[in-house]
């Protein structure tokens, strides 16, 4: 399909008053190996799209290199959208003359990784760009668009980029994906939930006139953040609620703070007495509140709603996630 035709189709779609949405999930693991249960869950919940991270591009040894390259074990039924995550320092360090070459390499690598999967209609680039690198990043996007003539090129848009398009710039892509999460500073001791905080999120909404068609991503992940003496130390993604509720190991403070009662080694980390874990997750209540805010923001446009991300336990959260998707409809 001609790229301009696609944009036109998108435009038409955006004018339709039907509030229905397209459901999808992000897949952010290095191995695409969906279990039977995962597949059944995706079918049951009506997911049509799987946005799969193919690889990261990082800056190392004075060059941009792909890492964490996807290993495809089996093919999902859903339409796969390749996603490439690029760290901003790639564009901070990359010489302007290297941008075009990077676009070619990324394009080639996407095709290489994709050889076990079906043809794709869209590719997405995820980069937390800032004004200082926007020229190089946007040039990269335009060159990548040329590499994939006929496909939709989308880019993730963070909340501050969404609110301040004049400052941040608008990427030269066919559509954007508003990331409605990671809205706080996770390393801040006083923060309560850096993943999803509608009070904070609300401050970024309200303009409703971003100059690109937009899809939306909502979070559904959890992590624990380790603070030692009030200072952020690291992200600990593996702690379960069962572990955190072990009263011998932890003293619970408030809603989501867990303080180590002893020195211990877990997950290859030496935790000390007094270390604090702030457990952050996304409750159904907060997610539904987010949907309310976002519905006002996007009006009645038909959009694609993605959940970040598909994890082992996601399949056990059918009711919660179905409620979130349904709330858009």
């Amino acid at each position: 399909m001609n790229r301009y035709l696609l944009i036109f189709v998108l435009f038409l779609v955006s004018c339709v008053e039907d509030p229905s949405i397209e459901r999808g999930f992000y897949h952010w693991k290095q191995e695409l190996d969906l279990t039977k249960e995962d597949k059944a869950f995706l079918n049951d919940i009506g997911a049509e799209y799987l946005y799969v991270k193919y690889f990261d591009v990082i800056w190392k040894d004075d060059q941009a290199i792909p890492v964490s390259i996807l290993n495809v074990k089996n093919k999902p039924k859903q339409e796969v959208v390749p996603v490439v995550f690029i760290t901003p320092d790639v564009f901070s360090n990359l010489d302007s003359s290297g941008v075009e070459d990077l676009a070619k390499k990324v394009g080639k690598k996407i095709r290489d990784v994709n050889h076990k999967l079906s043809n794709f209609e869209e590719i997405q680039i995820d980069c937390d760009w800032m004004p200082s690198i926007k020229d190089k990043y946007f040039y990269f996007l335009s060159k990548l668009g040329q590499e994939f003539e006929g496909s939709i090129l989308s880019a993730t848009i963070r909340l501050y980029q969404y609110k301040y398009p004049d400052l941040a710039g608008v990427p030269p892509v066919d559509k954007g994906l508003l990331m409605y999460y990671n809205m706080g500073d996770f390393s801040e001791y006083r923060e309560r939930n850096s993943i999803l905080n509608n009070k904070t999120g609300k401050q970024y909404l309200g303009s409703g006139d971003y100059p690109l068609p937009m899809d939306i991503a909502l979070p559904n992940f959890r992590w624990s953040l380790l603070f030692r003496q009030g200072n952020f130390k690291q992200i600990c993604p593996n702690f379960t609620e069962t572990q955190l509720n072990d009263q011998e190991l932890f003293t619970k403070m408030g809603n989501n703070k867990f303080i180590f009662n002893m020195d211990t080694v877990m997950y290859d980390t030496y935790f000390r007495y007094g270390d604090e874990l702030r457990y952050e997750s996304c409750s159904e209540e907060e997610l539904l509140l987010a949907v309310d805010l976002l519905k006002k923001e996007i009006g009645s446009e038909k959009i694609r709603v993605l959940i970040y991300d598909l994890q082992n336990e996601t399949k056990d959260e059918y009711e919660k996630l179905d409620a979130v998707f349904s709330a858009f409809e």
Partner: protein
Amino acid sequence: MNMKNWMLSLVLLSSTFPAISCSWWPSGDEIRFSLFSSSLADGDDISPLYYSVHFFNDYKVDEYTGPAENLQEWYNYFGGAYDIATIDQFIYRGRDKNQDFSNNKLFLDMRGGKYLDVAKYLVFAHTVEGMLEVDYWSDKEMDLEGLRNILPQAESEMQKATDPYLKLRYAYQIVVISYYTGDYAAVANYHKNHVMKSNQESVLKYWSMLYYANTLSDSDERLYLLSKVFDNSKSKARFIYQAYPSDPAAVKGVLKKCASNEEKGAVLSIVAFKNPGRAIDQIKEIADLNANSELLDILLIREINKMEDWYFTDYYTGFGSGIYSGCWECDAFEFVRDKNFQSDKEYLQKVIDVTEQIAEKGGVKNRGLWFTSLAYMNYMLNKGDRTDLFLRLADKHADTDEIRGQIAITRLLHLVKFSDKWDEKFQKELTMAINKVDRYGDHIYRFDHLRSQIMLAVSRKFMYEENLVLAALFEAQVKGGVIETYGWGSEESSGYQAFDLLNENATSADLDKLFELWNKKDKTPLEEELFKELEPYKWRLTDLWGTAYFREDDLGKALKIYETIPDSVWRVEDWRFHYYYAGELDNDPFESNMFGRSYGEAAEETYTKPEFIKEIIRLKTELDGPMVKEKAYYALLLGNAYYNMSYNGNSYYYTEYSWSSYEGEYPRKRDYYFNSSRALAYYEMAETYAPNDAYAAFAYRMQLKCKRDAINYEQEKVDYDKRNYSQIEKEWQIFAEKYPKHAGKLTNCDHFAYYSNAWREG
């Protein structure tokens, strides 16, 4: 504030930048404190597994590309005819087109016809290496076809080779090629029947074992073989570390396969390496199996480095172990810090006890290391006699320069910690101790870094004793590897760290002592040496000396010191020496400023420090004189002068050297700087002497600024949730009641010209 908090805030503030910076902050191994060399038991190949707060220790000491264990084999093979650097360049950088081999003796000899069979082997090995290379972007894949094609050549060369050294190496190449081409049967065959049966002692046997182990589906067998590789090849340690489980229960099956206690010890060692916490029980278990193990030695050093991090990093640097610290909530965590400190102290004693038991029982290979470790750990626990005892034992058993170097370091630290003198005898001993440490510098891991940490430890010792002069002199020696942590800028700015230390701590009495020693004619050689670092900062420190008196409001003494500084110093803006006078002193310090510190425009001309003091003295003299009308004006100008050199004024640079929107506590008292009390006294005087109600109201309006500053300053000492600023509002009400005709007009600048000139009217 207790001593620890005092130290903490001291170090946090030891820069010209704000204490709690919102930008870059040192972290991880940049701040980890260590005085015990990590490389005492081995070469550099295993350095990734030295203790680090990061996943791996990434600091590699030697300059070679290849692993030391293989370079050493080649060195021996050539009978010492070529140095390691020459061999390294030719073997490990041979394919690099940018390398210049014109001076490489090995290359030249081969070109001249020597070692042709070796040259042929190296060409082959380089060819295989090239075929194995992959490009990140898949522009070049591994050349499997090429590898298959070249395999017969390797087999043929292996059969033909008469030199067992080269025969083994060709066999190893076949194992590698077979591994990557997926022929695991060939891997097993060549590994077992050719590599392992070679009569050559070589690390390649273990490299080959690594490939063979990775073809096995039996996980226990694989881990068992990997443990053998780990025990015999340091350069593969990193890979094996990653492949191994960290749970001791997961290696039960592996232990069953071990044929000896030595093998069991190796398995348990890898698991112990994976323990980021307290591992002394594992060390004891390994020692019971094989006290002679080199891995045990490395584990002991690793344990000491861990304890240094937990026990020393916070103590010496103010940063929590292995983390960066902004310490917003320091007080709230004091209990946790103290409890962990006590618990670490008890653990340290336990490690000492276990180490002694192991060392006494005999069987440890490197007794020099074990006694040196015991000496150092006793030093950590402030046990002088035990430190001394084990240092003497260590002396007897030290058999490497690495160990001798660490003994010298511990002896230096011991000397400083347990001495309370600064006489000539002590200085001579200290100089000799420092020189001895320096002599072993080439044998100490990251010596620049470690030496700087030693100097910091010495500096802090004097600081704890409140001898700021010696603390500053040794702080100026902290340079090289840790400059980013304790100072800002380049190595040349190490003397500036002494300035920081004094600026944040010293009173005029401390600086009197510094200059008394500096100006002493018969300085000892050590004193001469130490002062060299301060020489480039002489005027800056002299300024600080005068400023210390200025801060104490002793204007006469301050002026006398300032006047020894050449006038040109006040006019320069030299970032290298942190002289910002001309740039910073660009406001009129006598200006009345009702509003913010940045209100108003820069003045065309202002005052140098001595000029400013002279003018203050003149105004004070005038104020004490007989005139009537001007008294209020002069008092107000003095109020302005004191206000403007305070935290909220327009010319803080007269008494401070940095300004931040957040400023923590300094050990020296700065209340007057934040609460504007000195200015308040003169504004009150201006109100008293005011010739009319308007000027009195104006003087009162200026007092309100001081009162507001004092309230803000006091409230900042209160818990965040309990702060109460309502008194500021009340002060405004009092103002409105006292001067009802003027208060309203003095809420903005509209009538400023009228009120500021009202002193002229009767």
